[in-house]
């Protein structure tokens, strides 16, 4: 269970208080207008920002004192997930070893996760030669390979066209079935939430309300 316990943060005139508890294998869509602070919540969970007060606990243990790399969290950003001078395999491999010294077993693991996202055969390509949807799938493969139980998606499909978006949603559904992470997806599109069969969290005026 991911517990967000009276987590407060003030940035200038803006003020948030988050209070939530989420299931270990739940799928949540975080909706809100632009500037409402959706990404702020993800940044707090991932450790890129620090709250003024409150606590974040995963399976009962507080995350606040942990560095981003030590948290049970992996993120997929809107864009800029890949390093353009590294091949697909290397980009995914960064998820296991940031120094890129990969053993044979690790290369096999990369292979298998690339197959999961439907990119087998693209291992040695550079990101520049892939489409936007394929690039996001590489980044998704890396997130999955890290085997962290919490997956944060920050508008991962907003830069993609409608058709690619549908494909990605279907792929993501299927991968969540397999890997069973706790997913929080930021979006401003209700349809995304429906397609993902996610529970909707609404962020209004710095507070979260749950729906159905």
């Amino acid at each position, binding site marked *: 269970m991911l517990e967000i316990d009276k987590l407060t943060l003030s940035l200038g005139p803006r003020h948030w208080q988050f209070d939530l508890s989420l299931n270990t294998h739940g799928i949540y869509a975080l909706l809100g207008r632009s500037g409402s602070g959706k990404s702020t919540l993800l940044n707090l969970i*991932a450790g890129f920002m620090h709250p003024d007060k409150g606590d974040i606990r995963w399976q009962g243990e507080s995350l606040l004192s942990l560095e*981003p790399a030590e948290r049970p969290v*992996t993120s997929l*950003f809107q864009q800029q997930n890949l390093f*353009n001078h590294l091949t697909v395999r290397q980009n995914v491999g*960064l998820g296991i070893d*940031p120094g*890129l010294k990969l053993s044979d077993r690790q290369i096999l693991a990369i292979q298998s996760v690339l197959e999961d996202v439907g990119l087998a055969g693209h291992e040695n390509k550079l990101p520049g030669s892939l489409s936007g949807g394929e690039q996001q799938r590489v980044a998704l493969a890396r997130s999955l390979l890290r085997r962290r139980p919490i997956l944060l998606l920050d508008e991962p499909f907003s830069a993609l066209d409608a058709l690619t978006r549908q494909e990605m949603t279907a792929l993501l559904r299927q991968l969540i079935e397999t890997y069973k992470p706790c997913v929080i997806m930021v979006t401003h599109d209700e349809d995304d939430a429906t397609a993902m069969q996610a529970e909707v969290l609404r962020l209004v005026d710095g507070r979260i309300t749950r729906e159905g």
Partner: protein
Amino acid sequence: MSTRWPWWASGTAALLIIAAMTLLPLAAMLAQAGAIDWQGIANNTYLLRVIRFSLYQALASTVLALLSAIPVALALSHKPTFPGRSLIVSLFSLSLVIPTIVAIYGIVAVFGRTGWLNEFLALSDIKPLAFYGLPGILIAHVFFNMPLAARILLNSLESIPADNWRLCRQLGMTPWTIFRHLEWHRMKHQLPALALLIFTLCFTSFAIVMTLGGGPRSTTIEVAIYQALRFDFDITLAVSLACVQLLICLSLMALSTVLRHDNSMGFDIYKMGQNSKSDTGQDDPRQGLWPGTTWNLIHGGILVIGIVFVLLPLLALVLSSFNGKTLSVLLDTTTLSALSNTVAVSLTAACLSVTLGLALLQSTRHLRIRLARERMGQWLQLTGNIILVLPPLVLGTGLFLLLRPLADVFSIALILVIMINSLMALPFVLRILETPMMNAASAQDRLLRSLGIQGWNRWRHIDWPQLRKPLALSLALSATLSAGDLSAIALFGSERVRTLPLLLYQRMGSYRLEEAAVTAGILLLTCLLLFAAIQWLIGGKERAGN
């Protein structure tokens, strides 16, 4: 709006003026030289040594400047939020504004034979370090180009998206992997063009080599041209040197058009009052990537060395300009007339330069945007960069030869200096104004035409608000460059006509150091005041969201 000038009028006028100011002198020079004995050049050991030294010192300066700029840029990028950071960044942006000859005075005061460094070393009985010749030239070139390079590299590091830093933190990357995968790749693309820029600046540098070079062993082509003209009056030698210089500059320029794939070396770095991007310190995505005391010490050490190196000469200058002679120099008529000459030259040259620049851009943007003749527009615009292949001393030589039969060259010295200085500032003016001029036209051109907003209304409501800042910046920068220039006035100046840079050079040359210090102080103050006042008067107040 009954009579409209055709679109090509302004560009053609500017083109003709530029051509008259450059091609005629060039022709005069070539005619005068008659047949150049190329065989003789190839066998002239003095010339060969000068050419070799010019290239060698430029190469060494470039390598040193880049090697010192990279750690400084990284340290500034790694520490995005410490107090005083924006001040340091602004300090680093000043290297074009500070007149070369002024900085030289400060550098001599710190690193020279009797400077602070050697006094400090003498305390522990270490013999004074050699300064004049190559060491002095290298120190001065690094002083000017390290901050420039650091600033440009910092710009490219700052363009790394925040999510990339977050990714590094989440993946637990070490500083070395971050450097290898992220930072080096950003900087790598910038380096060839940057190295070429610094190489060209050092290769054509005049004031530094003239003051700090030690005799014929360390002379560059620029200085050799000056000596051939002013001292030996050997026009054939001057012309053959000028031809060699022209050839090398042309090939450097050709190389730079190949290398420049992006335009990130813009002049945004001179915008005033920027750099308040992250208002919440703790949340900069780079925080925590270089943890621990060791990294703090490394970053702190690099920054302190970099700042001390840049600040110490300026400090030495400011301190020494208050001495027993301060008042008498300030009231001295020679100083005052040089001051008024300087201000007159700089303002006139700035206006001329910006007028030429606007006239060229007015036509090129019509070519590029409405007629979609991109290439032709760019060619027309390139003419404004002619001074980059035709260095001021070469141009000056030509003007001298062209006008000598017609007038007393030394009595119209200021006019010639204004012409040369305005051409020298033109490449900067074009770089600053190009993008805003294009944006003002392209982004809303169709919208404005469909709304029927044109002529005066368009200028008042649309163009002027968008252009006033870049216009002010280009005026300020060209005024400052002209006020601090020594090369043109060194050629045409005399007992009768002097500007502050020349006066300073002469006072330094005759070892009247106290007077020189005050003169340097006045010149520095003049340049900073011109730079700030023009931007303030024309650029207007900072707007919200800018």
